[in-house]
């Protein structure tokens, strides 16, 4: 409980610092959004007027506090470019990206747990070496390339799945799933290859530990000792990696959304960059960063639950 409070406090500080960094980065360094919006031929008066409308003529501290205060109420401000409210657009897209990341995670875990454990258990055999080689190859393929290959195989050649696009879950669950399969696979296969390596390494480390020998000395057979005593211990380091990977997936989804033309946060973000819509970029970035921070804290808490050596302090 005390730990929970401490972690929440540290999450809060990190989030505040992050918001400050993001704001500083995007609002202090760049040129004037009003000038950008009006182009280079604008009259100074027009620029000043727009500046006033945007509120960028106010002191930076006021701007920041205003923005940050808005964030707390889910108000991300109004876009300088499209003049829409940014908040609803972000919430719309965030769900899509979450589905992608979670689907990718599911694929990665389902792939990596058996593959990693087997690669470790067979590390002296050809089958283990083959699994290791496959995971090496998988790591070397970026997710968007995997996406392109999957589109080629399943959409172009087999015609079994759509090459891109998205249908909301509420509209048609079947179509929703069909549209998510390939993006999730391309995210999950690559992350799964990375995770396989970590699982293998964690299991191999455990295989050489004394307590596993003790388990065998009490009459457990090799495989049973690994299951009952080895894997619970191997889970501890793997969990940390899982947390990091979920963060990677959230951000990695940005690229995969581009491959499959999925209207997620990434798509919105790139649109914002293309339009130089700084307030939009600012909003999406802070959402992603806070999501990553939350995932990290949750992982940390689970980690403490799993390892009694950390729990007791």
């Amino acid at each position, binding site marked *: 409980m005390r730990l929970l409070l401490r972690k929440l406090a540290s999450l809060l500080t990190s989030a505040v610092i992050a918001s400050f960094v993001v704001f500083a980065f995007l609002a202090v360094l760049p040129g004037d959004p009003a000038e950008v919006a009006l182009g280079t031929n604008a009259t100074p008066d027009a620029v000043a007027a727009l500046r006033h409308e945007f509120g960028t003529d106010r002191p930076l501290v006021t701007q920041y506090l205003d923005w940050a205060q808005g964030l707390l109420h889910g108000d991300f401000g109004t876009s300088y470019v499209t003049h829409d409210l940014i908040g609803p657009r972000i919430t719309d897209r965030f769900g899509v990206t979450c589905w992608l990341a979670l689907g990718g995670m599911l694929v990665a875990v389902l792939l990596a747990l058996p593959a990693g454990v087997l690669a470790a258990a067979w590390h002296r055999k050809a089958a283990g070496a083959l699994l290791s080689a496959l995971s090496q190859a998988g790591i070397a393929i970026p997710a968007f390339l995997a996406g392109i290959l999957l589109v080629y195989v399943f959409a172009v050649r087999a015609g079994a799945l759509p090459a891109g696009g998205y249908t909301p879950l509420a509209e048609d669950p079947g179509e929703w799933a069909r549209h998510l399969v390939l993006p999730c696979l391309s995210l999950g296969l690559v992350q799964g290859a990375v995770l396989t390596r970590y699982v293998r390494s964690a299991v191999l480390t455990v295989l050489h530990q*004394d307590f596993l020998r003790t388990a065998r*000395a009490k009459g457990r*057979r090799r495989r049973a000792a690994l299951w009952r005593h080895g894997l*619970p*211990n191997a889970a501890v380091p793997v969990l940390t990696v899982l947390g990091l990977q979920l963060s990677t997936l959230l951000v990695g989804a940005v690229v995969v959304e581009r491959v499959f033309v999925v209207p997620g946060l990434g798509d919105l973000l790139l649109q914002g960059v293309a339009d130089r819509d700084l307030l939009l970029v600012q909003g999406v970035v802070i959402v992603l960063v806070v999501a990553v921070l939350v995932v990290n804290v949750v992982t940390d808490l689970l980690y403490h639950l*799993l390892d009694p050596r950390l729990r007791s302090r």
Partner: protein
Amino acid sequence: MTTAPLLEVTGLGVDAGAVPLVRDVSFSLARGERLGVIGESGSGKTLTALALLGLLDDGLRATGSARLDGVPFDLVGASDRDLSTVRGRLAGMVFQEPMTALNPVMRVGPQIAETLRLHGTRTERAAARATAVDLLDRLRLPDPARAARAHPHQLSGGQRQRGVLGIALANDPALLICDEPTTALDVTVQKDIVDLITGLSAERDTAVLYISHDLALVASVCHRVLVMYGGRIVESGPVRQVLSRPAHPYTEALLAACDLSPGARPKAIPGTVPAPGALPEGCVFRDRCAYADDACAVRPERVADASGGTVACWHPRTGAAATEATPPPVEAPREAGRVLLTARKLTRRYARPRTRPFAPRAHFTALEEVGLELRAGRRLGVVGESGSGKTTLLRLLAGLDRPTAGTVETADGVGLQVVFQDPMGSLDPRMRVRDIVAEPLRGAASPGRVAELLTAVGLPADAAARYPHQFSGGQRQRIAIARALAPKPSVLFADEPVSALDVSVRAQILDVLRGVTGERGMGLCVVSHDLGVIRYLCDDVMVMRGGRVVERGPVADVWSAPQHPYTEQLLNAVPVLGRSFSGKGS
């Protein structure tokens, strides 16, 4: 009562690929008998034990035969499935490292209960847990119910080892294999564990295979003993016979090397323990043996000798003059010189992490108001168990740490140097020996000076150009001594200088330390858990416990008439060869 042996091992061997690690090990063990296996690191004693239960690492292969009474198959070469019915039921095993032998994410009780349920001794979960608590009680763990609920990291080393013993003994096995079960523990704890093992063995008629490098300990536990060297048994026999009148030159040399008793002078075995695969043809001990001749180029068979033992040697010692005591080196009587260093009321506290924000910090006191004086030409020993504060004291005296309170004063022009415990970790692996030795000289080193220092500690001058990993543990410790001597310190500190070394080279290092301090009128301060080392090396002793000094005085006085009960307990806990034999027949 059956006369058939419980365990019959014939021609056991272990290979790592083409390299033989263990060869031709044959012995038998009767019910209730306790058999010791003695050897230095690399002798193959642990591999032998692991091979018996099929617990060798992948990549190692066992050959030969091992039959356990009541088991229809040969233990060597049996399948994992078959062996798993033997392990934990008919044969239990206790390992060297209690800190890592238990599953860290599982409570201790369930780990013991698992053994009971696995072999059907108790099928109900609750009954198994209750039995586990009973077992911990029998192993004299205070508050066994609480210990059963604890995770391993919440227990001390000795408590954990009792947990491991509980797992091994849960199903009342006929055979208990102990691999250095107390090496990682303090002497007083060691005594408790050893007493437990011998007591339970006698009570339940459990046979024990007891592996150790400590001759005196084996003498106090076992009826019979096997001496291993280079992967082979070189001698066997009743423990009193073998350790008082050894027949094999190696046994004799080992006894001479570890004899730190008053009036004796330990004698190192020349050379180093060879790597497996680098053993000589013929007799494995040939190139380190004082009696070797041409006959030894042919491997001697192990043959029975007159006194009920066996020995593999062409020139067995008759034992008549086996332990001719070499008198200790004659030293000019050393006068206590000027005071080099004075410590007053040294206290060191460490802050514990806050348990909640803004709570006052809790402190742990590692050392409390310790004072001492080091004089030129005197050797002070500081002895204590883990947690006694002895290492903290040394670091404060040497200026490697700052005291929370109290002062350390050195006389004018007094330099301090330290010889550390771990000869692997105390030399920078990326530096050549000459740079290591010259480090304290800071550019003032000439090649001649380095060579001179290396010679002083008994190393060849060509060692200067090599890297630390090219030396054995004993040689590395010599390099560390040479470095410490380089700036001509007035006081030399030594932190457990020989505890990481094999018995056969310990004596050399002790003699080097004794020699350099004697010649130069230096003050020496040695910290050790090993009473024998202090007894051998020092003039005065300080006994520490829980950060305080409980007793101090001249070595001879403290040994003959300890004043503090803890000192007495400590002295009694140490197994001593001569004393061990008494009160136990074979």
